[in-house]
């Protein structure tokens, strides 16, 4: 039915069916895309049925006032049209991945995504399961299992490991954590009606058969791969749901943090140790950072995104990526040319894998260390491909005054022309008048 009437304009047939089946087809829901449509429904729930829905730990859902019968659904007294105030409604601090999402199951994610889309959010962060990509990436560069254990933190601290603040803290990132994620995700997804799909079950069977086939060779290795598939499955499910509803996920990209072993593996690479962060013991901080001016930077950045595309599929190619380079860490120097080349390298590593890449980053570092991030430093860092907020307002002011002056002068010229014409005409008339006498 939805497909039949999903055209852009309501047809006569649609109205006829509407009149014939007024109960089964109660209403029309229209919006400019999936997010707008969902927000229309969310708006109706909030402002017409007086229901409420929140984050799981922010009040949860309140559906007490939801009508008990279809005929009791409230009818709006007049037409309401709401235009969104901005193109993009972004959601999530990068820290949210650890603060709130480290232990969430697909069922919790599903409710959260529903809340997002009914609240109008169309640009959510999609950081789940990225450690699979990092692990495969570093293994491809020759980093050992021990090296990775000294690199990844525990699940609830991964955010700060990703941003080069800490390493190995509350780690290593154990297979037990991955197992827990997998075991929680598995039964919920398998028996949930809303996520039921033949393809999904096929994949489950494939994984189970994979598990038993490789049982004799190496139980641990097989189990890790099996569970890793489920972590990727969780992120795949999230990305798939974002895509279905028309949301644009922001995926991670390379920001320069590398495992310690990379120093040994690439002795000529410009890898430096950052200062300690928040007085953490040395073994848990002083992260290793590959200089963005090193040629290896673009190589790793490109490889990471390509690996991410191959693991999570087309839904991961959203063209918008997050990389926070100096989160609560200062760059080596405030030299504008260094800052400019540093940001250029990050962006170049993105466009090497996706020519339409857009870099999104948090502004926190500019606020946290304002003595370093002066206007000039920010302009140097962002100036190559972005216009800073000051420039934007300056350009607006120039436009305003220049247009005002142009308009004033045009009016003055027109008035002058009119005056000259009138005077000329008057002179002509008066000069001709005596001849009539």
């Amino acid at each position, binding site marked *: 039915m939805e497909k039949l009437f999903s055209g852009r304009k309501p047809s006569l047939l649609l109205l006829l069916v509407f009149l014939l089946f007024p109960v089964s087809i109660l209403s029309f829901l229209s919006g400019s895309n999936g997010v*707008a449509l969902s927000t229309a429904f969310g708006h109706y729930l909030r402002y017409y049925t007086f229901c409420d829905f929140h984050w799981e730990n922010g009040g949860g859902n309140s559906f007490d006032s939801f009508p008990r019968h279809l005929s009791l659904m409230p009818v709006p007294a007049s037409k309401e049209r709401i235009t969104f105030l901005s193109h993009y409604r972004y959601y999530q601090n990068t820290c949210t991945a650890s603060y709130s999402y480290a232990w969430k199951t697909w069922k919790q994610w599903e409710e959260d995504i529903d809340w997002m889309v009914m609240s109008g959010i169309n640009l959510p962060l999609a950081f789940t399961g990225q450690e699979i990509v990092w692990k495969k990436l570093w293994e491809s560069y020759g980093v050992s299992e021990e090296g990775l254990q000294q690199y990844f933190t525990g699940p609830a601290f991964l955010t700060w490991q990703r941003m080069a603040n800490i390493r190995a803290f509350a780690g290593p990132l154990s297979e037990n954590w991955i197992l827990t994620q997998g075991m929680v995700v598995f039964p919920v997804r398998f028996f949930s009606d809303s996520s039921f799909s033949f393809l999904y079950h096929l994949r489950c069977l494939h994984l189970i058969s994979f598990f038993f086939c490789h049982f004799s060779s190496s139980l641990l290795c097989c189990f890790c791969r099996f569970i890793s598939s489920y972590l990727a499955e969780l992120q795949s499910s999230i990305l798939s749901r974002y895509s279905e509803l028309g949301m644009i996920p922001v995926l991670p990209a390379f920001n320069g943090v590398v495992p310690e072993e990379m120093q040994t593996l690439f002795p000529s690479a410009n890898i430096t140790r950052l200062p300690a962060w928040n007085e953490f013991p040395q073994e848990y901080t002083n992260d290793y950072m590959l200089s963005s001016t090193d040629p290896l930077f673009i190589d790793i950045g490109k490889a990471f995104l390509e690996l991410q595309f191959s693991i999570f599929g087309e839904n991961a190619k959203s063209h918008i990526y997050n990389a926070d380079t100096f989160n609560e860490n200062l760059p080596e120097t405030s030299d504008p040319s260094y800052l400019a080349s540093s940001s250029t390298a990050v962006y170049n590593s993105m466009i090497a894998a996706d020519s339409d890449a857009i870099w999104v980053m948090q502004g926190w570092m500019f606020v946290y260390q304002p003595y370093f991030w002066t206007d000039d430093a920010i302009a140097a860092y962002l100036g190559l491909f972005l216009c800073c907020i000051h420039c934007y307002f300056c350009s*607006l002011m120039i436009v305003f005054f*220049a247009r005002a002056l142009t308009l004033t002068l045009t009016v003055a010229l027109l008035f002058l022309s009119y005056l000259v014409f009138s005077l000329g005409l008057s002179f002509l008339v008066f000069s001709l008048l005596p001849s009539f006498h």
Partner: protein
Amino acid sequence: MNQLFVLFVLLFLGLTASASSENHVSSIANIHKKLSSNHEGKEFTSAVQSLIDRVLVRANATFQFHPILEIIDMAEVDGQLYDVFEIDSLNGKIVFR
């Protein structure tokens, strides 16, 4: 003569500023084009109906709710396109547009 020169300078400034403003708008349009490219021509109605079904299950609703879902044109504000939705009534029935 001096006044004429000033006039030309101001006209030049005005035209340059207008061009800069247009560049800004076109760069936003370019970003919008890149980000929306994945969703062009996509069918959203079944996903939104599934969302409604899930919400009704959470609300313990005893009935099915199958509204007609329709995609409408984006709203144009100052030459730029923005997302929009409508809620209305038709023949005494609810209309979300």
